[in-house]
């Protein structure tokens, strides 16, 4: 059975359709492996070859991968949540109640989104600490460190904008306090706050703005920066796995 399955797979790989999609051939050589990575839009973000050492838990604690994982969970749970949510003042909180009481697995969906969001913030912080203490930010990786800091900011903004969406008292006052911090910026403070909230107080406009930021602008920005981040890992010589000790 197993043989026949393998045979069928092998036959499948020989078909014209398969070859039109995956242009690299199938074979045991390093060339084949390299091509498989290089000719795939997603895989080619990472290196064709990496050191085995850099895959060990000790080196990274998998913090970058885990951050990416939580990001993917957030996208996967966020999309169905968008189906149940209206960013409008009368409806937003009622939608929370619907998710809790009427939607099948709504509580699971919301909790998974919420806890993953908390986890992502923690993991991204931890990732940056790990990189910092290991000195992995040093040349040639200094640009990627900056990208990482930008990604941290994006993570925090995502978390902050998402906090308003349940439209409960906690949300309202958190954003009120937060946006008042903005107005402490010299000269342009209140202007920036007006821009962020779409008004002078947290209201319908603020809810809509935060919703668009949370669901469209910030995730897209994060995806783009993540792509650059991964691509730069390859370009900067792969994952930093410590100094190569000279004999």
């Amino acid at each position, binding site marked *: 059975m197993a043989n026949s399955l393998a045979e069928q797979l092998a036959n499948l790989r020989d078909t014209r359709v398969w070859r039109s999609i995956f242009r690299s051939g199938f074979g045991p050589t390093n060339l084949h492996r390299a091509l498989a990575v290089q000719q795939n839009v997603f895989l080619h973000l990472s290196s064709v070859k990496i050191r085995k050492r850099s895959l060990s838990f000790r080196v990274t604690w998998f913090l970058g991968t885990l951050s990416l994982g939580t990001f993917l969970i957030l996208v996967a749970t966020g999309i169905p949540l968008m189906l149940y949510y209206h960013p409008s003042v009368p409806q937003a909180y009622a939608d929370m109640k619907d998710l809790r009481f009427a939607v*099948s697995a709504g509580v*699971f969906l919301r909790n998974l989104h919420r806890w993953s969001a908390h986890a992502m913030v923690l993991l991204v912080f931890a990732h940056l600490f790990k990189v910092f203490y290991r000195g992995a930010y040093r040349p040639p990786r200094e640009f990627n460190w900056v990208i990482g800091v930008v990604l941290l900011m994006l993570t925090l903004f995502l978390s902050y904008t998402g906090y308003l969406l349940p439209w409960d008292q906690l949300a309202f006052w958190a954003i009120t306090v937060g946006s008042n911090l903005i107005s402490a910026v010299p000269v342009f403070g209140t202007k920036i706050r007006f821009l962020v909230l779409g008004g002078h107080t947290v209201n319908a406009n603020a809810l809509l703005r935060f919703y668009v930021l949370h669901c469209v602008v910030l995730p897209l920005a994060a995806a783009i920066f993540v792509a650059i981040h991964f691509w730069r890992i390859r370009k900067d010589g792969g994952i930093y796995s410590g100094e190569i000790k000279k004999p």
Partner: protein
Amino acid sequence: MSLPKRVRSAWQYLFGNSASAFGTLSGVLLILLAVVPAKDYFREWLGYQKQYLRLIHGRGDATSLSRRFQGGLQQIWMPELGVVDRCTTCHTALKEASLADVKTQPFRPHPAIPHKLTEFGCVICHRGQGAATTVEEAHNSTKSWEEPILPARYLEASCGQCHLDRLMGTPRLNQGRDALAQYGCVRCHTIKSPDGVTMTGSDAPPPLQHIADKTTREWIAAWLKNPQAYAGSATMPNFQLADDETRDISAFLIAQSTPYQTHKGTEPAPAASQDTAALQEGTSLYGESFCSSCHAMQNTAGMLVGGNLGPELTRAGSKVKTEWLADWLRDPKTYDPDTRMPHYRLDAKEVGLLIGFLSSKSDSDFLGNTQLAAATPAQVEHGKTLVIERGCANCHAINGVKKPDNFAPELTLVGSRPLERILFAPGVPHTLADYIGAKIRQPRSFGNALKMPQYTLAPQQVDALATALLAQTQLAQTLPVSLRIPGRAPSHYRPAGKAGQLIDDMRCFSCHKIDGRGGDMAPELTWEGSSVERAWLVSFLKNPNTLRPSLIRRMPKFNVTDAEASTLADYIMTVYQTPAFDQETLDSSRFTPADVEHGKELFYGKYACQSCHIVDPNKDKGYIGPTLTQVGARLTASWIFHWLKNSQSLRPGTQEPVWNMNDEDARAVTAFLVAQKNAPRKEAAQK
């Protein structure tokens, strides 16, 4: 194999290489994810629906019940009212009257109510969280929902959100609203109805500008200390003042008092008649004048007898000065232009008799402990400060002290006050209803510095007040205006001319309502001219006799002159005419004896009017409605006719049943009643 070794080998098996670790972790994740559909399946409401199906299984009407039963999540959704009520998911049998014997919730059918269950949903009346589908979240106050189910005893509050008028079915709400006005709550607290009308007090706190002429400083001090010690029925609450505070306030009140324009000088004050014969005569005059229609007095058994429109007079002799009382009895308006007390046209002898009787009603114990030295200016000054602090001027007119604005918190939205903003006294359950109840019962339990005085209220009154206050919700303001049944707007009707002066002089509005203004102790007079015969009216004004044998309170005799009675009757007959019918619709001269006989049959047979009315005092036993022995002399034929056809359209809320008589029957019964012109006095006396 030892335990650690076993564990190690199991670990090796599960996580030994990356392939088995991946497999194991995937398995664990799968099991964890299986919790999600499992939790969905074991939701509370599914259990209740299964229980319901088991409950109806063995019943006779199981087939029709189960056909009407709808499984799955149910909700009443009315976006325009903001209603999303999922209560019917578990309360499956609300409309199943055949399950009346079922006493277990959530399967009890809903009691009959004037609204359809799907008209407003559940939460608008019962509160709680309509969107919730768990017992805890739907009924209780939780972290994400503050408003628990409203206890049944306050439920009428919900009616009051739309019904600003008086509903027959909400006695507790009506009582509460009355009490808010009657106990002067609304004099310190602003309370606005959802239609924007500010509630006004229905009590009559006396002005204190001339108090020194009326009573003594000692009485004021003793009264302030505990008003209920003077009169158990006093509406003034206990301000829990210390002795030095009552001393200083009484000093200030006497000091601010100015003399009023009295009868003094024009005629001598009648001497109080105190001998036994005069006392007896005074007692009967008090009774004959029907003072007790408004004033209560404790009888020898300690029972309070009389009305509550005026102050209790049990200890009046300890309170008022006789010169003042003489003036007051002659014409109360000279002392208090806004008093509800009518101007009795008493002669000097009668005044003297009443003074004698009332002076005998004294209680030496009441003032026994009050010894006051002459007031110092410092005490008067301190007294004024206290009067301002305690807000006395909210109710009483006092020289030199203005009525404060917004003295106490506004209560327009108290029924929606968020719990997070309430400071609960220890031991009070954390619900709004309990908070309001506790606050009314014992205001100072929330802090000694609070100004709210201590009322003496029965538990039912507290519940009624809480009910009326709980009706003051945010929802009541935001509901569509079309749902609102407005209350009667306050009327400032003033009759004109000479008759108007007489009506004002005799304070008819204290008891009678005309055109929306006035009290509800006596019949409304708005259409009186359409209903009565002029001759009867004149004789009634001169000597009012009771129409309803079951009533103790009745109209006092004001001793009006012939000219006054005639002026009043003319005015009433001309102005107070209903537009509902034409006096000429029925010509009573065309009634035949056959009509009268037929009417009599209908009266005693088909409609059994004698259950409530008396036509033949020897036979009939009806004591509910007015006696009809002379109704033909009292009421016009047209009025009787239209009254029989639809009494509610003439006087809404009357106890007379709606008969919907056809014209023929109504005409016959009218003929019979019109024939009742003279009381069969002789036979009645014999009986």
